């Protein structure tokens, strides 16, 4: 099957900054894919080259098999982008904005779908409002609606939840999950790694314009060596035998690192021997954030 997105050896320079330094990436159709990385890693640049907002200096990008330069019309018809910045045209109402956006894609009688998108994003009551009169959250919803007016099979959301309240975040994710269930490919950038871990099947991590990790979320989390155990003891003091694996202590709880689960047995034995009683114990699983921190440090 044609990949939803195919990025091959893409380079992009801004003056002396090598914003994309040979990026290779493939997103399969129907995937929920996360593009992660610190600020300035090249996530938005990659999205911009994919969407035609910037031109790559080298390499090729395809959306549903269509080259973004030579087949730009088809590539753009297949792609919906929710930009990071909260942009809007102050001259128009919500409905006008969506009708105009739809017309740009050559869809002139698209009111049924526009109504449905507005309904699903809870915008119906604001349809006649001028864009200026909307709150930030509402403007964000309109941006999402604008990216969907032409029913693109591939949807890219560039930090859609930055500065968004909890309620909208939940609503937005439910909606995007539904879109994914309906068959849309979703690519997401976010700084909230718990969101990426919860939603995305595969993750690419970018650093300084390069892909430094690309795997399923599960494999990445598994790849982090070691788990941790948090203990509260009576008496409070940690037996000296366990000092080498202590990561820290705070308010009477000690955090110890475990290379693997069998090591927990050795910890328990050491505690028994020292006559310490376990008041509370919690195994801390590594999450995507740990993976992220580890990879970014390593690279």
């Amino acid at each position, binding site marked *: 099957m044609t990949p939803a997105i195919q990025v091959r050896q893409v380079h992009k320079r801004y003056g002396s900054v090598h914003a994309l330094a040979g990026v290779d990436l493939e997103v399969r159709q129907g995937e929920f894919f996360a593009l992660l990385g610190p600020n300035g890693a090249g996530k938005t640049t990659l999205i911009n080259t994919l969407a*035609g*907002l910037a031109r790559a200096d080298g390499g090729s990008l395809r959306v549903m098999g269509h080259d973004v330069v030579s087949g*730009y*019309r088809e590539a753009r018809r297949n*792609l919906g982008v929710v930009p990071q910045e909260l942009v*809007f045209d102050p001259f128009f109402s919500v409905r006008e904005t969506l009708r105009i956006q739809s017309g*740009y*894609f050559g869809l002139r009688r698209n009111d049924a779908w526009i109504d449905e998108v507005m309904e699903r994003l809870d915008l119906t009551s604001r349809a006649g409002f001028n864009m200026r009169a909307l709150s930030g959250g509402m403007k964000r919803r309109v941006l999402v609606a604008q990216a969907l007016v*032409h029913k693109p099979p591939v949807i890219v959301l560039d930090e859609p939840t930055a500065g968004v309240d909890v309620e909208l975040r939940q609503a937005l994710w439910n909606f995007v999950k539904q879109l994914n269930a309906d068959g849309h490919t979703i690519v997401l950038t976010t700084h909230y790694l718990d969101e990426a871990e919860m939603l995305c099947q595969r993750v690419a991590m970018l650093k300084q314009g390069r892909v430094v990790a690309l795997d399923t979320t599960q494999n990445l989390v598994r790849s982090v060596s070691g788990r941790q155990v948090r203990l509260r003891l009576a008496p409070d003091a940690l037996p000296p035998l366990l000092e080498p694996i202590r990561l820290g202590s705070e308010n009477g709880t000690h955090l110890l690192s475990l290379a693997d689960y069998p090591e927990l047995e050795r910890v328990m034995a050491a505690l028994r021997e020292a006559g310490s009683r376990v008041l509370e114990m919690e195994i801390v699983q590594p999450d995507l954030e740990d993976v992220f921190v580890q990879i970014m440090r390593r690279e």
Partner: protein
Amino acid sequence: MDGFRTLLFKELLRFWKVSFQTVLAPLLTALLYLLIFSHVLEEHVQPYPGVSYTAFLIPGLAMMSMLQNSFANSSSSLIQSKITGNIVFMLLPPLSHAEIFLAYALASVVRGATVGIGVIAVTAGFIELPVKFPLWVLAFALFGSAILGSLGIIAGIWAEKFDQLAAFQNFIIMPLTFLSGVFYSIHSLPPFWQALSHVNPFFYMIDGFRYGFFGASDVAPHLSLAIVGGSFLALSFLTLWLLGTGYKLRQ
């Protein structure tokens, strides 16, 4: 072509929604010029035999308003979109650069024509203006507005800040329009300034446009049409090329 039609519609709706500022204000400005200049100069100047100064002035003012407003339409729309960032809504869809050019240029022509027709319609109540060759009037109105619409696109693409656009307007467009013979026949100028006027393309737009009304002009209308038509073609190609390269729009 649906994308083009939508972009054109959006550009028309944009200026129409603020027509107080985009149509009525320039109309008032033109009328004030007319009032003052015709009051001061009517007795002293007769540019062509049998043509009063006020009658002479009206087509010039109409054309000047058309040119300035055509330029203002495309340039201000683009710079606003660039600065607020909503230009992405036009750059993300599958619009070709020819569609973008045509939509912006045509919307500029419509705004220019609206103001120009307004100037002539309002002044028709005060003075009878002959229209000897309406096709010439139409041709120069169209080419003139389209040229300034294209210039507006170029300026809107080039400028990154409002003051850069204002500089373009104040240091290029304004001098060229004011020194193009709107208020005088260039035959009344000293030889040096006459010669200089002949390298100003705006002069040919105004002179040719005026010829359509009076059947009299400073230079032969065919020459004016050739120069104006040539300028239009050259600027169209330049604008299309700029849009095609993505200069300052698609980083």
